[in-house]
């Protein structure tokens, strides 16, 4: 039934926009949002002003201002999508049928409404690829500043490698380098090789996603530890 009541109209517009997951009381969603807000708050009150022992915090490479885009890249990533739809929004809670009781009868809008933003993953990916060189540039800078390789630089290196692997193993990359063609033999021989190579990486996309995310935080904590003077910076090769 269509009503002309203006109040209901705005309600309808709202519900057409906001995914149903956010319109219901769910401690998981609440906790998740709280954690993000807390994270942003902490970064604001404890900002990293300058490099520490030549190391630039990965969250600030090249500038903290791009963080929202990187965040969106990760939020719209197919691997994370699986995880947060399952474990935060509980759609579904598990593949086993017996554990499904909780999702039954709940409203569900999937990746429609605001979650249509998932479809822009490709654009965030372009951006993420563009800033990849900065991670390596930071390593170069650190080596020059320190005149050798320190533990922090090794950590930055590992972090850069995982970020790169994660970014390049993305499903959107997979689509662009080969997934979008049905005929490799029509002068796209190279693309076929790229595609099958990338597919091997892509199979581990979810693992890479989590490793690289964890690395980000570990490296950040390490550098903050150096700044606070509670962690040592060990020179490995002079």
């Amino acid at each position, binding site marked *: 039934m269509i009503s002309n009541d203006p109040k209901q109209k705005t309600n309808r517009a709202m519900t057409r926009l906001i995914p149903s997951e956010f319109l219901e009381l769910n401690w998981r969603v609440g906790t998740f949002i709280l954690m993000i807000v807390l994270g942003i708050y902490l970064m604001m009150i404890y900002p990293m002003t300058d490099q520490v022992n030549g190391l630039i915090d990965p969250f600030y490479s090249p500038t903290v201002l791009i963080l929202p885009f990187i965040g969106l890249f990760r939020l719209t990533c197919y691997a994370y999508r699986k995880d947060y739809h399952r474990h935060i929004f509980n759609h*579904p809670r598990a593949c086993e049928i017996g554990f499904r009781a909780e999702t039954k009868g709940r409203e569900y809008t999937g990746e429609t409404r605001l979650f249509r933003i998932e*479809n822009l993953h490709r654009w965030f990916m372009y951006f993420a690829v563009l800033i990849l060189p900065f991670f390596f540039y930071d390593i170069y800078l650190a080596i020059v500043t320190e005149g050798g390789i320190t533990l922090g630089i090794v950590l930055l290196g590992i972090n850069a490698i995982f970020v790169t692997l994660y970014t390049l193993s993305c499903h959107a990359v997979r689509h662009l380098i080969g997934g979008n063609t049905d005929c490799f033999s029509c002068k796209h021989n190279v693309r076929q090789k790229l595609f099958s190579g990338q597919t091997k990486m892509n199979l581990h996309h979810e693992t890479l996603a989590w490793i690289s995310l964890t690395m980000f935080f570990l490296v950040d904590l390490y550098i903050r530890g150096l700044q606070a003077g509670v962690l040592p910076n060990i020179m490995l090769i002079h």
Partner: protein
Amino acid sequence: MEEKIILNIYRQDPSIEQKGQLQKFEVPYVDGMVVLDAVRYVQEKLDTTLAIRWNCKAAKCGSCSAEINGMPRLMCKTRVDTVGHNITVTPMGAFPLIKDLVTDVGENWEILRKIPKFTPREDMESPWKMQQMDVERSKEFRKCIECFLCQDVCHVIREHSTPYFGPRHVVKAASMDMHPLDSEDRSRMLDQVGGLGFCNITKCCQDVCPEHIHITDNAIIQEKERAVDNFYDPLARLIKRKKTKERSVA
């Protein structure tokens, strides 16, 4: 003494009974037996009125789909020694029940009818030539035996009412879209009519597929990306249009 296993089989004729219940049967264990062997033993020797659906008994036809201890599986492909000696077998919950373990999967044919059939390009010389590497991608989807376990496990199909066609049907569309000589693009209709956006890629379908098809990674995400080409990425659309033009000129 001969070894026995216990089967708890769901019994209900919805035209007569409001509620179903599990009925317990004891079946002699045979080395290497699968759940279907045990269920058939019940149907043939203990209670011939038990409704079951099976056909090839070789995991090639996809008839004997059921939920074994709460997981959607093929009865013919589930060895008893992998699920223990006390087994609960229930019908697929995503489809209307006909009787006991048999469900009405007819809605799937209605959906399949909505997916445009294979539409070859018109500029082809006969006999057609294709390269093996181009055939491989679509071939994965052609392994599908239409057991509909993916439809059964999919929470969108099972628990919600949406326009989403379901994993099997995205696989079907992908099998034709990725045919090197097909000229249709089914991602548009999947997105607009088939509710592709309702899939939140939680990958249960991929987990239960008895043919080990990478449903989510290779079919659904690929179709979603193609839909992005069509609706969310003007750049990709422009390139694509130029290519189609080139081809039609050639």
